[in-house]
């Protein structure tokens, strides 16, 4: 499977300004979050990037993208009808091709040389099917994420055949439907905010939007799992949701502590702790 396109969603009501925030990256360079996300995509060998935005946001995003602005295609979501609708708004951009999907309010930090997006794209290429990045998450965090259940693929660690997809399940439901062999008790595979999707997803969304005004994206993924091979992969890395309280701070700290300025930042933190 050849993956040449990526889609970033940034049209959510509380999400619009998040990719525009400035952060200092691993190399000590100040960049916008959007630029960091774009670089993550580029490192996966993808050059065509679509960004779904609210009407009127394009200028700000262009500025935030800096030197990468010319690579971007902006897609306006005409009405605020949710995440699935935002993705479906980019149907034309996807144009029957597989695509990498990321959310605009997450940062990904890899534990290896390869970026998270690169890891995911390589798996999707190798397996030739849709793959969602997932992270083993404690059940107390279930109210915040979509989650999947399934079996290990050929007993390969960290790769799962998805059998069920649920949006923010209760642990009661998760325990019954999202049991995954090999995970610790009380942990489930929750979405990482990064997927490689096949063209079937846009088709499923089209069908779902024919009958419904609002559609839950997890419903589309559940359909996908019923129709074709769909995997979940645990990546060597972590994601940081800077849309939550202190999320941006945590993301920044994570970036800094994994980069060049680690000692300086740590010293600052210790000083802070000592004087407060």
């Amino acid at each position, binding site marked *: 499977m050849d993956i040449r396109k990526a889609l970033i969603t940034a049209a959510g009501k509380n999400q619009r300004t998040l990719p525009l925030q400035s952060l200092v990256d691993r190399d000590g360079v100040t960049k916008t979050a959007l630029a960091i996300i774009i670089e993550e995509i580029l490192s996966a060998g993808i050059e065509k990037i679509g960004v779904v935005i609210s009407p009127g946001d394009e200028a700000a995003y262009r500025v935030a993208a800096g030197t990468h602005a010319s690579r971007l295609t902006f897609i306006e979501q005409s009405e605020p009808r949710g995440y699935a609708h935002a993705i479906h708004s980019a149907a034309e951009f996807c144009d029957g091709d597989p695509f990498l999907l990321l959310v605009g309010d997450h940062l990904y930090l890899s534990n290896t040389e390869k970026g998270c997006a690169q890891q995911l794209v390589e798996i999707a290429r190798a397996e030739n099917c849709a793959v969602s990045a997932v992270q083993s998450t*404690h*059940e*107390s*965090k*279930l*109210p915040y994420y979509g989650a999947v259940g399934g079996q290990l693929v050929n007993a390969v660690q960290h790769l799962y055949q998805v059998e069920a997809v649920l949006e923010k399940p*209760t*642990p*009661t*439901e*998760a*325990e*019954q439907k999202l*049991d995954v062999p090999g995970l610790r*008790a*009380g942990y489930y595979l929750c979405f990482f905010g990064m997927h490689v999707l096949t063209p079937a997803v846009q088709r499923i969304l089209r069908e779902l939007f024919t009958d419904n005004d609002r559609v839950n994206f997890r419903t589309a993924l559940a359909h996908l799992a019923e129709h074709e091979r769909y995997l979940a992969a645990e990546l060597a890395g972590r994601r940081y949701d800077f849309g939550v309280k202190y999320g941006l701070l945590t993301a920044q700290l994570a970036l800094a502590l994994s980069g060049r300025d680690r000692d300086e930042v740590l010293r600052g933190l210790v000083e802070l702790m000592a004087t407060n």
Partner: protein
Amino acid sequence: MSSSLIEIITSRDDAVRNRSLDEICRAASFADLLAECAALDAFRRQSENLYERVRALFFLYAIHRFHLPERAELKTGGRIPFHGYEQLLQRRFEEAIEIFSEAQKTDGPSDALSSALAAAYHRLAFQTLADQVRRSVRTVRGNQWMFRMGHPKDQPLRVRRELLTKAADGSYPILRERTPVRMDLTHSAWSDIFFLGMDYPEGAKVLNVSVDLGVHGRDAAPQPPVSAWLRVIEQPVLRLVSVDLGARADISELAEVFDFAKDYLGLLKAAVIASGLVPPGIEGSGQSLGGLLAEMLGPGRGLELVSSVNDIPKGSRLAVSTNLLAALIGVCMRATGQAESLTGPLRESERRLVLARALLGEWIGGSGGGWQDSGGVWPGIKLIQGVVAAAGDPESGISRGRLMPAHHVFDTKEIPAESRQRLQDSLVLVHGGMAQNVGPILEMVTEKYLLRSASEWQGRQEALGILAQVLDALRDGDIAKVGAVTTRNFQGPIQTIIPWASTYYTERLIEQVRAEFGADFWGFWMLGGMSGGGMGFIFAPARKAEAQQRLQAIMSETKRELQHALPFAMEPVVYDFAINENGTFADLLAGGNALMPAGYYALTVPELLRQDQRTLSPLRRAELDKFGAACRTRPELRGMVQTLFDAMLPRGKADAASESLASLLQENGFDAKQHEQIRLQLREGRIGLAQNRLPTNAVIEDVHEDDVVDLGHARSARLEARGLAALRNGEAAVISLAAGAGSRWTQGAGVVKALHPFAKLAGRHRTFLETHLAKSRRISRLAGANLPHIFTTSYLTHEPTAAFLAAHADYGYEGPLLLSRGKSVGLRMVPTERDLRFAWEEMPQQMLDERQQKVRDSLRTALIGWARGAGESSDYTDNLPLQCLHPVGHWFEVPNLFRNGTLAQLLAQRPQLKTLLLHNIDTLGADVDPMLLGHHLESGATLTFEVITRRLEDRGGGLARVNGRPRLVEGLAMPREEAEFALTYYNTLTTWIDLDRLLEAFGLTREDFAPEANADEKITTAIRNLAAKMPTYVTLKDVKKRWGHGQEDIFPVTQFEKLWGDMSALLEIDSRFVVVPRRRGQQLKDQAQLDGWLRDGSAAYVESLCAWE
């Protein structure tokens, strides 16, 4: 040797697996039986399989309880190591078995040790079962996470947005869950007991119907009887309200949620925990409830959960409380998104979750129901059946079946709508008014199932066939056939397995209905664990309305007739019912409709109205306004104003009761002076439970061989002839002690034990009274002279006994039959905290299962609080007057004969009377055995006490040498618990009395009883003098207080008594002791003993002593 019993347990061949234990044991020698025990014990220790372990344990129990004691080779007597008994009390069953087995190795097998081993194996078997059911409940998927969650921040549940959104009037919506109860059409031989379902899933099947109920003549139409209501409140508390029990609490501490017996909100608390709102894993975490609520609802908010039962009484056998628990769990799960359906019916997967949680809730709350009890959650008529455990199930490899059954809801193709209507047109559903504990019955069923006793196993198979027949009849709409089949079930398999499922009351009802309705009475149907409470009578539809009227009258009349004989909790009720085709169903009440049930306001509004309106929150004020407006417009709230008025200004009801108590005390010779003296002594700590004991320096030893005469083994023709001659000459009379309330028999229900039709003997239910008379009749015939029979009575038992004997024409007893009415009565007192603590903390006692123990501890704390609040040692008057009085001990019953003229009357009729035989009402084997009479006469003793060799269950004292002199010692007086275990003999209380010598001990002669003697004063003084030498024991007794709709609370109360056995301590009385056969001396104290009594041949022995006609 190869063990044939292990082969039965492990065989995969049904024919071998289902062989009866009895059959094999009968053919085995004594040595074989001991070898089988050794092999079984080794086997159960190494087997990993639950079923194998439990069945081996039951085999071991049965061999020690029933088979070894029958063998002549087994030594009677023997000692039970006290240390083993202590282990048993602490629920360390394995250790107890070790100790008893060790003693068996060193001392040889004995009757006493077998009784101890039987008890230990029996309890270990049930503990193993209970542990497994609980483990399975925890491992059900969907339940596990709640045990992992220990911190509020980890609470993953969120209350649904719909419930957090206020209406325009500022109120939060109310989520209401309404749930039918369930009735069981087939009663497949109690196959709904968890273990049966888990061990024999193929045999676990019931036809379960969800029904709405109304009380006939009271309610306009049947409604779902239970409902649960939930809403968000703006206080960070859990507000729990039980409208049915009139209880409410604002809970702000986590620990309080887990305190079940503190108030009447245990069921609501269990629901809150089992639904995950306060997950079980957080118990004891020291975290804050407010924090937990904030995670689910946002800061400053809390939840209000309200339960309501449509006045359906307890003990209805319709699983009201389990379905209420399910409704509460359902509403909590919907509110937190654990069920996708916020309103409407539940989906199948959601219903199964509610079932799993209800099982968990019952475990947490320390109660337990059958696996079909949450049937009301499902719609209409369904088949519930066991499922064989498969690979991947948590039960796989542990038990044959799964914990959770499968439900198949019949559609109208399978059971047509017309058949359902016909069932409703024919069935009269009633509550007979009896509320009994079915726990012992369920244990009996489990035990018999595992032993595969031939007739019971046959009965079980037959019951399974009956289910198929009921189903066929329902498919065909043939309700008459349903009636015929359910009747056959009741009369056949059900009673074959458990004879105690039927009661005399039930049989009288059936008999009367059959006589009145003839062929239009199509059948009887027992609901639940036993009859007497919820029952069904099936009639030709044309006569249903008439049958409803008549059944009410027949039940009320029969209850009146038997109210002193059987434990009735309430007035019988006839229901209207309708099949509920929805199952549990929820709706969201918003805006103007967001009102709680009417009873909620009756409970909460009076207090709100007493408060300054300005201090009420705006939400509360708005709700009051809304409620006020609704009272004016809604028909269902009509009469509310009156209700509130009554609640705020209650009318005095206490006066009449206190008047009747005062007159009762006066009528029954209450000694107010003595009462005050006892109160003073109690308060000063001079008497009390601890002071009952003999001084600790008293030397208590077992008696010597020559202290007793053993008449337990051989008959003596010479002594028999001597006794018969005395009988023929009219020199003897028998006294049955029937003045006590028999509190253990009905757990303090206050019925007359003597009148209880406790078992079927010679084909009919017989009372203790009738049985004792039948024995005297046989002796009379044997001797050729009628034996006078005296029953002693008291304030509690006299009138009912007299009326009962009159109604039964003295059971046709040919000889003189006298009632000796008690002349002394005491007034119960609220116990002191000191005595409660002594009883609960200092005395060795049976620990309960972990959860039940928690509930018991919590209840005990509440009862200590009650005693402090009500006033320690104050008069106990907060109950029916009769429940406030107490008999003052059986010592007084012989002197009462002197005082009340009974002895004078006897002597006038029979001046030759020389010997009295005194025995307890529950010593069913005691009769005027000519040989024992002959022995007593020949010995020249004043009193000859009968003793038996001891078994584990024989607690409460015994025959001992105290400081070198043989005498009977009451259990209460034992300075150390273990001293009792060193005693070989147990006191039966049965006493042969030489009348003249006894009178002499009192300082009286028979001349004092001549009509012209006018010796009343002398007699009274003589009694007082001797009474002064007798110790007074302070005891705690359980007394039931009934309230509401069949609800019962049990309170421990203080009373005092003097006991007959202490006569043996008087130096001036020549007391002797004879050892008699166990069957003659054993007592029936507890209804749970009945089944063993029937099976071990004791009942047959008693029958052999009786001449019924």
